[in-house]
């Protein structure tokens, strides 16, 4: 039994790693295409049919590019920083159930690497550690734009983490468990049982915070191209920069899974239809990340902090208090 469990876990880890590395690549393709269509362009068209093989071309380019470490950079930290981003993004996936459990050759598979009883805390914690990637990378690369990016990263990080935590408190109080599988089972009854109906404020707050968490467009200020070049990525080249990219896109996928699991019923009762709906809902949230990038402007760091501390945090606290009173009486 121990050996079987060990082998199963290894296989699950490898599958998740491979699938989401590939998905991160396809994510860049979808992003380019959807942004292009929204801006009346065609996007990548020349490599392969409809530019599908652009991912392969990008991969070859990233892997074969010279890996440059600037003279005054702090070498070891500079080199390890992108690995932190990518690794923590994938580590966070350990507590996410990607599918309902299914039986294959008489063996029941739970498509979750580790159903720990502090699942959400673990995910939020590991994703938060992911912010050390940009932070350390930019501090170590001895570049003024990277330094600005580090300052912004620290400010953004503190601001949105408070909102994420407080927004999640209310649903956690209702479900009474940190496990995402328990969350899913709590909403398994159907659309009417989804937590979004009882906790709409928490849903919106967590969604907004997810944009800051992944550093997507309204809150893209850590690597704002038109202000600070590529922020933490300014001095990076080749696959080290690519690791930042993979981390960012993997994070987008995982946070989309988490939003659906927390508020929108996850995979429901565990049927095939539920699993399909789960993927569809996840795809909508991923699409929304791209959609907002085409539509919305970026905001300034002070505006983000203003939003997080003065609007979202009081709202989140109010939400927790109201939820508490409702549950008490």
């Amino acid at each position: 039994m121990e050996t079987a469990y060990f082998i199963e876990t290894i296989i699950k880890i490898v599958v998740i790693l491979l699938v989401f590395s590939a998905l991160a690549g396809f994510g860049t393709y979808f992003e380019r295409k959807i942004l292009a269509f929204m801006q009346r362009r065609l996007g990548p068209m020349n490599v392969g049919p409809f530019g599908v093989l652009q991912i392969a071309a990008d991969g070859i380019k990233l892997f074969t590019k010279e890996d440059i470490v600037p003279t005054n950079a702090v070498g070891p930290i500079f080199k390890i920083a992108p690995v932190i981003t990518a690794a923590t993004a994938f580590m966070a996936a350990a507590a996410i159930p990607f599918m309902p459990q299914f039986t294959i050759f008489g063996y029941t598979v739970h498509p979750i690497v580790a159903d720990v009883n502090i699942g959400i805390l673990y995910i939020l914690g590991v994703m938060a550690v992911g912010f050390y990637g940009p932070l350390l990378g930019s501090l170590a690369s001895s570049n003024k734009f990277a330094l600005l990016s580090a300052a912004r990263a620290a400010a953004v990080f503190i601001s949105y983490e408070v909102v994420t935590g407080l927004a999640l408190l209310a649903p956690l109080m209702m479900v009474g468990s940190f496990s995402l599988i328990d969350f899913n089972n709590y909403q398994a009854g159907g659309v009417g049982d989804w937590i979004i109906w009882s906790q709409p404020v928490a849903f919106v707050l967590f969604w907004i915070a997810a944009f800051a968490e992944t550093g997507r467009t309204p809150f893209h200020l850590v690597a704002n191209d038109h202000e600070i070049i590529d922020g933490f990525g300014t001095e990076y080249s080749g696959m080290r920069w690519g690791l930042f990219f993979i981390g960012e896109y993997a994070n987008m996928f995982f946070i989309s899974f988490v939003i659906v699991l927390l508020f929108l019923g996850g995979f429901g009762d565990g049927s095939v239809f539920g699993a399909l709906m789960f993927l569809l809902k996840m795809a909508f949230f991923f699409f929304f990340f791209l959609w907002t990038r085409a539509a919305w402007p970026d905001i300034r760091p002070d505006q983000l902090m203003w939003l997080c501390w003065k609007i979202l945090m009081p709202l989140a606290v109010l939400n927790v208090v109201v939820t508490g009173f409702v549950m008490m009486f």
Partner: protein
Amino acid sequence: MMSLEQFENRNVSESGYYKVDIESYPETGWEKAKQVFSRAIRGELFVGLWVVMREMIKFDIHTVQYPKEKLPVGPRYRAVHEMQRLWESGTERCIGCGLCEKICISDCIRMDTKIDENNRKVVSEYTINLGRCIFCGYCAEVCPELAIVHGGRYENTSEQRAHYTEYDDMLTPFDMALKGEVPEYPGFGAVTPHEDERVKSTPLAY
């Protein structure tokens, strides 16, 4: 007819400039709160989302896939020169007068002429140094025979600059001229339409 008046008026402040109406900034805390509230309720973010989604659904793509598709170039565009031939006979139009060589303000045209066996003056060597050429169009303007004209070929890539200036490349192919496939040249250097009406008799007597 478009008049030149609007171009002659250099006073820009009179022509349609106006000050943007900016609301006064909120001062008290209550006014700031009201501003935040009104901006949050107005839903401008969703207007933005709708606009890009509408464009995606309409799928009105404006991309020109350049090597496969090309935008049309204006007929009087001044790109790399062409040497024309006469219709039907296919004889080269150039009579070797050397006017283009003389008028060229960047001194990039160089020609040698000789008298051939028919006692006709022909060009033995003709080069245009396109590295110097500024494509002003004087050569095409001055040519009495409509021999040198500006074509529409604007894509030039080569390892050597000399490759652009081969006389044979500029020359219209002989067989095309014989078959009458050379269209009436509408581009730069061609006679403008209705030229006959504008011609005035030369006053001979002083």
